[in-house]
């Protein structure tokens, strides 16, 4: 049971897959968060009616399976617009929008959690809107939003397992390739699961710790 055909080179192949997973996640989370903050503030500032188009797009991104979003984006950019784009670019674009969709909600929740009186106090001290946002809202909202944001980043990391449909070889796909070759599904899947767990679990725990540490009660 314990002898396996898995070689060091194969393990390196898996590690490279994990690296790709982290790269796709990092790019998407960085751009997605920036976009999400913009959308979140936009949504908060404009109110439900004027921000409706943005809300709709973000809502669609949360209500359609990621697999379909990836296939659609790939088909639209590749076959309809005839753009020569790598799978990596498409994957990052879709995941960025996906991250932004969830991040906007988190940002809005964070801004909502800042007491209005605090902000009025800031404005009555002569702070501009930007100063109020930068020095009052941001520090307070971050406290509320950061634990959920960590959860979101980990969610994106796990969902990035789906980017195999646009020919990106990340951890899940490389495991699949090895399974096809070595025919040891259980063992390889356990290693793959361990990779994901090792990346995700400490961060998830850190998020839980922050949530407990920063809660107001």
């Amino acid at each position, binding site marked *: 049971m314990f002898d396996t055909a898995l070689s060091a080179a194969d393990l390196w192949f898996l590690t490279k897959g994990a690296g790709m997973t982290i790269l796709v996640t990092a790019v998407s989370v960085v751009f997605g968060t920036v976009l999400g903050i913009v959308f979140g503030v936009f949504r908060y500032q404009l109110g439900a009616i004027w921000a409706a188009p943005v809300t709709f797009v973000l809502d669609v991104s949360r209500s*359609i*399976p990621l697999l*379909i979003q990836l296939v659609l984006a790939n088909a639209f950019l590749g076959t309809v617009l005839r753009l020569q784009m790598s799978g990596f670019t498409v994957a990052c674009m879709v995941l960025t929008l996906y991250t932004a969709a969830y991040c906007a909600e988190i940002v809005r929740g964070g801004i909502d959690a800042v007491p209005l009186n605090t902000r009025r106090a800031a404005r009555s001290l002569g702070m501009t809107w930007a100063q109020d946002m930068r020095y009052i809202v941001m520090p307070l909202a971050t406290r509320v939003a950061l634990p959920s944001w960590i959860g979101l980043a980990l969610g994106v990391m796990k969902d990035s397992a789906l980017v195999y449909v646009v020919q990106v070889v990340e951890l*899940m796909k490389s495991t699949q390739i090895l399974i096809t070759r070595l025919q040891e599904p259980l063992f390889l899947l356990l290693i793959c699961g361990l990779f994901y767990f090792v990346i995700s679990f400490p961060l998830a725990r850190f998020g839980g710790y922050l949530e407990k540490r920063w809660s107001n009660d």
Partner: protein
Amino acid sequence: MFGYTFQWKQALSKLPQMLDGALVTMEIALLSMAIGIALAVLLTLFRLSGNRVLNGFAVTWVEVARNTPALFQIYMAHFGVASFGIHFSPFTSLLIGITFNNAGYLAENFRGALKAIPETQTRAGRSLGMTPLEAFGYIVMPQMLRIAFLPMTNQMVWAILMTSLGVTVGLNIDLYGVTQDLNALTFRTFELFAIAGVIFYLITKIIQLGARLVAARLFRY
């Protein structure tokens, strides 16, 4: 404009088949949600039991479900257990995978909800002569399910979205699987998947609306 001719008519003619697939998708999601809630309640009980083995089992389940991709869990249910000579059909594998995921996330939601229910209520129930299980079942659980209703709705939406992963283990009767097969026949990738996307969006909206109606009916004081 695009140098690409959209063939919506051809794609739309496949709509009945796709709607049949949507029914299967909803069936899987509802089943996985029902079993998932039952398992999550059980896991919550395990955590409350104070028994180290049961608690460890529940914690392991929750952490694995929350820290690995759903795709991995479905692969495990299909290809992983096949190493033990157990072969599930794609439908069963997908159902097991999603149910495992649902139960893990829901158990964590329930744990959060439990914090909002004062310990004194259990003690009051116990002092009225209820057994621990009765106190949980009649006093704590109803409140827990009420507090966790919104996260449960979100999980239901995720269950719908996760059914699209069935295609990776060879399921071709759900909405995504049907669309994939039609795509292989007609190559109208964009049109077909756009229609599938609209159907998924509508299903999600119906669930969210339905949940709101149910909540208004169930949770009035």
